């Protein structure tokens, strides 16, 4: 799909997503750093922020300054993979077209993480931290190709719908 003004919109979404990702990753490392410095309130707040989406079991988290990171190894892999995917985005997709990855790409890259995670939850096997991190990276690297494309499409669609509504209004006024 190629539309006029697409490059600027995709670039803007890309840059905002990159800034958000940097902030997100910083917060993951900031939580243990604050805990180590004795800033208990701020550290708790950051741990709390990540608690709805991660079990935060200390044994499954990498440590920083002697304290566990705010997310587990697998989640850290997903976010690190997301950052890596963002770096690759301009080379693979560019800023001039909007195209979501196909299911044929999505499924094979999701399968390792899904199998490893499901087997871990069901107690079939216990994978090492490295494997959890690696499967997370693989899946996470795919996500910016959905996120950036989807948000850019959202902005372009809204702009187009607003323009169409304006045109309809003008036509209605002309008829009157």
């Amino acid at each position: 799909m190629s539309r006029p003004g697409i490059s600027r919109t995709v670039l803007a979404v890309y840059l905002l997503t990159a800034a958000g990702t940097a902030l997100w990753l910083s917060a993951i490392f900031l939580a243990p750093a604050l805990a180590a410095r004795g800033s208990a309130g701020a550290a708790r707040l950051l741990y709390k922020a990540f608690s709805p989406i991660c079990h935060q079991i200390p044994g499954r988290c990498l440590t920083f300054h002697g304290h566990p990171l705010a997310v587990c190894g697998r989640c850290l892999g997903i976010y690190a993979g997301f950052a890596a995917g963002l770096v690759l985005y301009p080379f693979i997709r560019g800023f001039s077209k909007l195209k979501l990855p196909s299911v044929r790409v999505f499924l094979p890259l999701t399968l390792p993480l899904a199998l490893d995670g499901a087997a871990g939850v069901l107690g079939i096997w216990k994978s090492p931290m490295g494997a959890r991190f690696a499967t997370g990276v693989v899946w996470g690297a795919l996500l910016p190709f959905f996120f950036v494309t989807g948000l850019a499409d959202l902005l372009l669609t809204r702009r187009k719908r607003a323009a169409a509504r304006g045109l309809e209004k003008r036509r209605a006024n002309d008829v009157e």
Partner: protein
Amino acid sequence: MDQKKPEYLRPALIAGAVAGVLSGLPFVSSGNCLCCLWIVGGAVLAVNLLAKHTAGVLTSGDGAIVGAFTGIVAAVVDTLMSIPLRPFNMELANRVMRKVSEFGYDMPSNLDGYLDGGAGFTSPGFFLLGLFLTAAVFTVVGVLGGIIGVSILAKKKGRPTPPTAPPSAPEVPSDAA
């Protein structure tokens, strides 16, 4: 492209409620530790419901909006459910901590205060702050889930049909005159 805005709210409310309940239930909520399964799944469900009630083909932007709404609804439901379940969740967290230390993992001495799921956050201000943080995180994840949902379900919905020509004026038989 269909210029009419799809109805996002209804699918988001239904799917968000489902995702919020699953995210709030003890044990079941651990599904969210697997790539935010319930939130991503809820957003995909919302896209599915939206696709059923939308005439045109959904764009990834539509998926992003309905996913964001689903995340917000899920956060509210999850936070509300956490109020009555707080004592149970605390006990569960303590049991997990004990189990983890039995396995011989090194635990920082002052860890209890940090990883107890926000046990110290009991005032209304902190409750609202917790709701805001959960909503922010679930919204981002919901957006992602909604867009993934569109990419998965787009094929089922089919390609956009080309615009049909306006109905032509009834032909007048040439021998009518």
